[in-house]
């Protein structure tokens, strides 16, 4: 393998992981956009998505369904489960303290994160769970690089979801209401927009994207553990900050950039060091461009 091939191969691997980071990062950034809360429970919602998908897959494979059906069912199951969970978390944990100082909400988020993590451990056990390899292991060699079906699935599905989200936010009524809410919820309410509902919907959509991230994560790595959500959540949060938190295209780009940095770091230095690589990148960026790659606006509300 030439050095150029190694470079591109690592880049491709990094992009795969980066696409998953991006999907999770969207949840952080959307919620931050509307209520300026770092929803630390989001990493766990992602994990609930992974475990929910696992349950659906186990059920469906027991019924001997063909793999595309199983995959769709798992995606749908995880989507609904996490969407609902996101809505419920917002309603019972965050809405009652929306007017409280921001630190209270942050601590509630951390508490919610612990709660979900331990609930997962109680339900599914503390040991690694095997994720069935659903996707037929096909592999293409193009110009000395090799791509797996799994990678294509991850790229394809995350590209579709991100395009869908972009259209939703930029050109639908809901999206306009979401952007307006993120800029000034009070002015928005005074124009007759049900701000509480917009915030709840934002949680639902963000969580549902995280769920798909969870499914893809499980399929990609083959095993999942209840505390994987913590590190993945941290990474995705890093990605959101890299791109400029609150900024949706920023989260997408941040995720991909972080994934590529890790891929290259793992390829050229050591895969043991890839986390160090990711967080050093974050520190460096925050030193030189504290608002992130794409941030156009820092919350300037009084």
């Amino acid at each position, binding site marked *: 393998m030439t050095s150029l091939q190694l470079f591109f191969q690592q880049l491709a691997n990094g992009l795969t992981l980066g696409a998953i980071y991006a999907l999770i990062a969207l949840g952080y950034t959307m919620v931050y956009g509307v209520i300026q809360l770092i929803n630390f429970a989001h990493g766990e919602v992602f994990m609930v998505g992974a475990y929910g998908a696992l349950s659906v897959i186990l059920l469906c494979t027991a019924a001997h369904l063909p793999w595309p059906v199983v995959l769709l069912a798992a995606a749908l199951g995880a989507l609904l489960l996490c969407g609902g969970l996101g809505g419920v978390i917002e309603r019972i944990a965050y809405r009652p303290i929306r007017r409280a100082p921001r630190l209270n909400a942050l601590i509630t988020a951390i508490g919610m994160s612990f709660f979900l993590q331990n609930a997962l451990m109680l339900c599914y056990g503390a040991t690694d769970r095997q994720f069935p390899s659903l996707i037929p292991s096909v592999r293409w060699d193009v110009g000395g690089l090799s791509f797996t079906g799994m990678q294509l699935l991850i790229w394809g599905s995350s590209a579709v979801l991100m395009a869908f989200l972009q259209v*939703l936010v930029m050109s*639908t*009524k*809901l999206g*306009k*209401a979401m*952007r*307006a809410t993120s*800029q*000034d919820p*009070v*002015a*928005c*309410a*005074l*124009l*007759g*927009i*049900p*701000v*509480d*509902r*917009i915030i709840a*919907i934002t949680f639902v959509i963000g969580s549902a994207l995280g769920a798909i991230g969870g499914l893809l994560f499980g399929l990609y790595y083959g095993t999942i553990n209840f505390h994987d959500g913590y590190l993945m959540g941290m990474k995705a949060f890093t990605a959101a900050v890299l791109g400029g938190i609150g900024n949706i295209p920023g989260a997408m780009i941040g995720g991909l950039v972080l994934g590529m940095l890790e891929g290259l770091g793992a390829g050229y230095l050591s895969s043991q060091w890839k986390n160090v690589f990711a967080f050093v990148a974050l520190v460096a960026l925050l030193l030189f461009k504290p608002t992130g790659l794409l941030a*156009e*606006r820092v919350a300037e509300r009084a």
Partner: protein
Amino acid sequence: MAVLLAVHRLTKHFGGVMALEAITLQIERGQTVGLIGPNGAGKTTLFNCITGVLRPDQGDIRFSRWLHPSGSQGQEVLDVEEETMLESLIGYSPDQIAQCGIARTFQNIRLFSSMSVLENVWVGTFARTHAGLWSAMMDTAEARREEQWAYERAMNLLELAELADYAYQQAGSLPFGLQKRLEIIRALATDPALLLLDEPAAGLNPVEKQTLLCWMERLKAQRLTILLIEHDMQVVMPVSDRVIVLDYGRKIAEGSPQAIQSDPRVIEAYLGVPKPMSGNRDCGL
């Protein structure tokens, strides 16, 4: 005349400060009422109570929404028993109150500054479109028709305000005077029965003030009811049918613009009368 808004003994305090003390006032449909008073008199607090941003401690706010949103037809018929048509707004959320037909602007501009001028007005029309937010996502024929309606309505309003050329610019990039104008347009997009304007002339140059006056005359001609907070007497006096004066959270005077200008209590509140126990008040004139 039919009463559109009736405020009864409205009281609000912040800690020990009486922001509003048993305020009672009525606004008839089609009237323009000026609300004046020195800084800190409680004018904006009153707006915040009416729009549901603040919950009053005591008192009632009643609003008549029987004509809304279809316009002015049938007004004469419904003039009978108007009192029973008033509904209390207490306990409604700001978005519900806006849906009832009350819109407002802000003392310091609160546009969605990184959205386009058109989008700002568009968001205002949401109060009058019925497709749910989810169904709007599904792109049904009904939702598409509404989107088209909302777009046209927003564009019409922008043309009326001579802002159509700026439709696709970021709202935050407009000059100050145009931002103020856009904020009024955004409020009008909700198709209100009652428009609350919080210092619309503040910071405008004389030409812009003239335009604003013209505008308000036009809105009056369309029988829109307006409650106007304004310090600039050259704006308040010509457009107002009636002027209410607040000072220290109390209503100290009410009457025609001519009567108010010569009312000794008003002059005292504004200019201060040297008294042994109190210093001069901040002068709003």
